[in-house]
């Protein structure tokens, strides 16, 4: 399948601007940033390990933005038939999907950086932080795209998004309070990212825990890409 980088660039620019104008999607990027500000000023006096609040907000951002942006955006293009117009303008399904994945990654990166600076963590951690958050977000973004491909319209996408978001977020939040939640959380990409970022902030990045979390993320990347390829081959991108 031939892919035109020029077309991906044009689609990327359009998708980026469109998401900025789309209140229902852009709100999913604003909420974690809002919580970062809130947590910073409400809970900064409480005795907590450094990086704990950062991890918590990153988990929220990962499950909201990474799932919602590609899923809702792809479903909207299907519902309003703009996807059909693109296909008929000689845009391939792969070019369309790559643009959506890149735009979501960009928004995730921007919001993660905002959260990083709001939480005033050590600037020396920034390069590692960027690599960790981008890699860990990848499987969740691809799963968000899978939801978008599977959904007929935005409403269906909304229904499919919620269980995925809850399955990733809730065990991570309750991992320290409940044993079963902790076990489940160990197998989610969300908790794996939280674990690696925590290890970064406590100076234990080179540890067995980080390695195990990395294995979980890699496994999720394989699962997400396999699900995406299978669905893409079976259904294509359009209804």
């Amino acid at each position: 399948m031939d892919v035109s980088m020029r077309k991906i660039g044009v689609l990327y620019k359009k998708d980026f601007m469109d998401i900025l104008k789309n209140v229902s999607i852009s709100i999913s990027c604003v909420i974690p940033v809002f919580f970062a500000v809130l947590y910073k000023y409400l809970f900064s006096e409480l005795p907590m390990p450094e990086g704990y609040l950062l991890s918590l907000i990153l988990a929220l951002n990962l499950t909201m933005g990474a799932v919602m942006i590609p899923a809702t955006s792809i479903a909207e293009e299907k519902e309003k038939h703009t996807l059909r117009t693109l296909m008929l303008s000689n845009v391939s399904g792969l070019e369309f999907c790559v643009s959506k994945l890149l735009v979501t990654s960009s928004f995730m990166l921007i919001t993660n950086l905002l959260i990083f600076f709001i939480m005033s963590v050590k600037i020396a951690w920034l390069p590692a932080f960027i690599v960790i958050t981008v890699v860990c977000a990848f499987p969740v973004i691809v799963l968000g795209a899978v939801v978008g491909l599977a959904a007929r319209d935005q409403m269906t996408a909304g229904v499919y998004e919620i269980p995925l978001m809850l399955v990733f977020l809730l065990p991570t939040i309750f991992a320290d309070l409940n044993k079963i939640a902790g076990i489940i959380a160990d197998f989610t990409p969300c908790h794996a990212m939280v674990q690696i970022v925590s290890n970064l902030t406590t100076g234990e990045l080179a540890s067995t825990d980080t390695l195990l979390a990395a294995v979980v993320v890699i496994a999720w990347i394989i699962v997400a890409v396999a699900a995406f390829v299978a669905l893409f081959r079976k259904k294509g991108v359009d209804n």
Partner: protein
Amino acid sequence: MTNLIELRDVCLRLDEDFAIQDLSFEVREGEIFGFLGPSGAGKTTTIKLLTKQLKKQAGEIFLMGESIERTKRSRYDEIGILSDTSNLYDRMTIEENLKFFAALKNIPGSEVAEVLKNVDLLEEKKRPFKKCSKGMKQRAILASAVLHRPRLLFLDEPTSGLDPATSQEIHKLLENLNQQGTTIFLTTHNMEEADKLCQRVGILNRGKMIACGRPRDLKLEFAKDEVEILTTDREILRMKKDREGAARIAEIISQEKCLTIHSKEPNLEEIFLQLTGREF
């Protein structure tokens, strides 16, 4: 004259029924070809076959001289398509939408203004697409389909649901495009539109081509063998087109009793009904 589209005995089954059955016809370069038929006749399905949205199960399709299986993706850059569901982006203005499609098709953004002028939307270019009337939307969608001056343009019901004035504007646009060299494949169930715009038409019914030719030729082929005369007595007389009828007509004219004289040619709608017995 080159055939831009050629179908030979094409078949397609959808849900056990034939959507297209032994369909054969050709569209010549430079013409407006009207593909007519009632809803469900297979018009949109044929466009989907020609634009690779569906795959034929039998027969051969040639697009711009090449078998459709061997047609490269880049070939589709020479084609414009306006489907019955084509749409633009709500949150973008008309101009932003067209600039986006111009960039996709690798056309300088400066050409957008000329296309906007051609579709009479230059003054409305800053209007968000979602705030446009249906006619404006359709003209903007058409503009996005012809930005790259396609060699071949597929139009699926381009005036469906539009008021007569807007339909007229679209017709004018299509005639201009055709004069500039674009071959147009137009599907419609509006027989008047087809009669006005198309050099040749094909009538499709239940996936089969039941008539094909120039509208005038079809009308002559299906014309009744009689002439209608309105006399000075306001009487309507029908004469056969034979020696006896000719003598009678000559007699009426010589008596200066003839007000009007008409041959009884059917319109395309009547031809369709005659062929199929179906209503539109």
